[in-house]
């Protein structure tokens, strides 16, 4: 009996190891190929001093290993298109995170203790924003903004603002669900105690409710930030002439790719990992006990 159990465990462990390899191998390969030289044939015909200054069209086959170089990192960081696009994306993502979290927090507070019958219409609207495919939201936003501008001169022209507006629809719903789940889960006993002791609604909110909601608020803001920063589909249709990081990344992937893209992607990956670790530490420090359940809901 004991023996049998052990082999089952070993089989599951082996499978899990395979799946983790499947998840991480492509990312690892991408990071390794950020250090790849252009192919020898291409280098023979290239006479510049900086081998990473080679034009994308001449670079040759870079999916096999040609030798080690670190120059793609400086090439990527000095690229005239990538860095401004990354800054634009960071700005939009920060704004999207703030707006989505505030909208989501307000709605979550009111909805959590509302009668189910009153809550139902709002809930269906929220789920609708999550179920409608992103490509549909993207094209609908595109024609909406173009028509609103043509006929009513309302809303900004296509650009950063329209990207932001389109992304907040989805992110506000996600933020609301995350914050509300925690709010409902923590009950109202402490709030009631505060009221009984003579604390007013605002003071109670500031001193009791808000601190206890903080882990969920941080999670919602981080998630909105990630979703917005990572989003290609909405900006692809509502960007006008604005370039975001996913947009330049996408065109690089489809046309003229150099390992400089790998280098920048690797830097981003590193920064993301640092952010995840910092968040985990912060959440642990804030006395809120974070169990597997919370981690499970974190990226949703």
């Amino acid at each position, binding site marked *: 009996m004991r023996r049998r159990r052990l082999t089952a465990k070993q089989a599951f462990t082996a499978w899990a190891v395979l799946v983790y390899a*499947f998840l991480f191998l492509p990312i690892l390969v991408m990071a390794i190929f950020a250090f790849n030289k252009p192919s020898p044939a291409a280098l023979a015909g290239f006479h510049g001093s900086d081998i990473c200054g080679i034009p994308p069209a001449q670079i040759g086959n870079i999916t096999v290993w040609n030798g080690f170089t670190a120059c793609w990192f400086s090439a990527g960081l000095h690229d005239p298109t990538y860095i401004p696009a990354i800054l634009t994306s960071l700005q939009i993502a920060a704004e999207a995170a703030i707006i989505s979290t505030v909208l989501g927090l307000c709605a979550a507070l009111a909805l959590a203790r509302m009668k189910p019958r009153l809550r139902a219409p709002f809930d269906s609207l929220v789920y609708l924003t999550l179920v409608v495919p992103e490509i549909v939201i993207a094209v609908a936003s595109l024609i909406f903004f173009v028509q609103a501008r043509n006929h009513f001169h309302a809303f900004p022209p296509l650009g950063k603002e329209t990207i932001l507006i389109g992304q907040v629809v989805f992110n506000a719903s996600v933020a609301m669900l995350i914050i509300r789940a925690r709010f409902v889960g923590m009950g109202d006993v402490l709030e*009631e105690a505060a009221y009984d002791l003579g604390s007013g609604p605002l003071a109670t909110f500031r001193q009791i409710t808000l601190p206890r909601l903080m882990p969920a608020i941080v999670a919602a803001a981080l998630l909105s930030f990630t979703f917005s920063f990572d989003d290609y589909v909405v900006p692809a249709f509502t960007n006008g002439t604005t370039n975001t990081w996913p947009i330049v990344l996408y065109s690089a992937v489809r046309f003229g790719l150099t390992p400089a893209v790998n280098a920048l992607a690797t830097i981003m990956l590193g920064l993301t990992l640092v952010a995840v670790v910092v968040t985990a530490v912060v959440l642990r420090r804030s006395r809120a006990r974070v169990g597997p359940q919370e981690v499970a809901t974190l990226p949703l």
Partner: protein
Amino acid sequence: MAVAEKTPDVAAAPAATRRRRSFKPRYPAWLTVPSLLYYTVFFLGPMAILVAFSLATQQGFGSLKYGFDTSQYHQIASPLYLSIFERTLVMAGLGTVLAIAVGYPVAYWMARYLSTYKMLALLLIVVPFWTSFLIRTYALKIILDPHGYLAKDVGINILYTKYAVAVGLVYNYLPLFILPVFASLERMDWTLIEAATDLGARPFTAFREITLRLTLPGVVTGALLVFIPMTGEYIIPNILGGGNYEFVGNVIGDQFNQAQNQPFGSALSIGLMLALSVFVIAYILVATKEEQFGA
């Protein structure tokens, strides 16, 4: 998203509810007004225009006349576009089944066999999800490249085929499936399995009769959670299918990018939403039925 929904009700302690309350802290209903306004203008507004566009008539390049023209919908019903819808749904279904087959054992392994490293294992599942979707798809493209090692040395040359699209779907959406299933496995009472095996059940019978039944809601939620975005997928068929294997989402995008046939693109969008709504409604019916008879 649905996972976050399931957890709440548990924490309401019976002792606290039994006591009669003089007063219940509530937040005012007007706090919902900002998001309600936002959704109305920036979500329902675009959706309404989408419907109006799908019924409009194209006149020349880029100009159109509003009306009640259903010809766009007739065009969708042609064999060409029906086959694209069919392909999209079949591929999303296949991707979902693969995600279940690959992901369920991993979730089971984490919940059943791990204790100290459970959080770490879970975090490692989540990490790829926090990295860029595009970068992950691109990373897969490097591996599958016809000039790369997998194609040259192993003989697996599948880039720009439906197989590459299927691999891309599973690769990108696997974490999203594992998380809700893990959450439901984590809630499970493993002593039930012990009791069943003590009473003579074989391990697999115990798994089928207890574990599988109790975690089925999590599996269904996870499956829907990956099926919906897979059906609307745009990036994966473009990058890994290379335009040879388009989903409905790509055809919609083409109508707005290159073809400039916006009424047809709008009608396709409505069609895609209708196709999806069938599955969502089925899920809601099953979920409410379970709430009535289950537990």
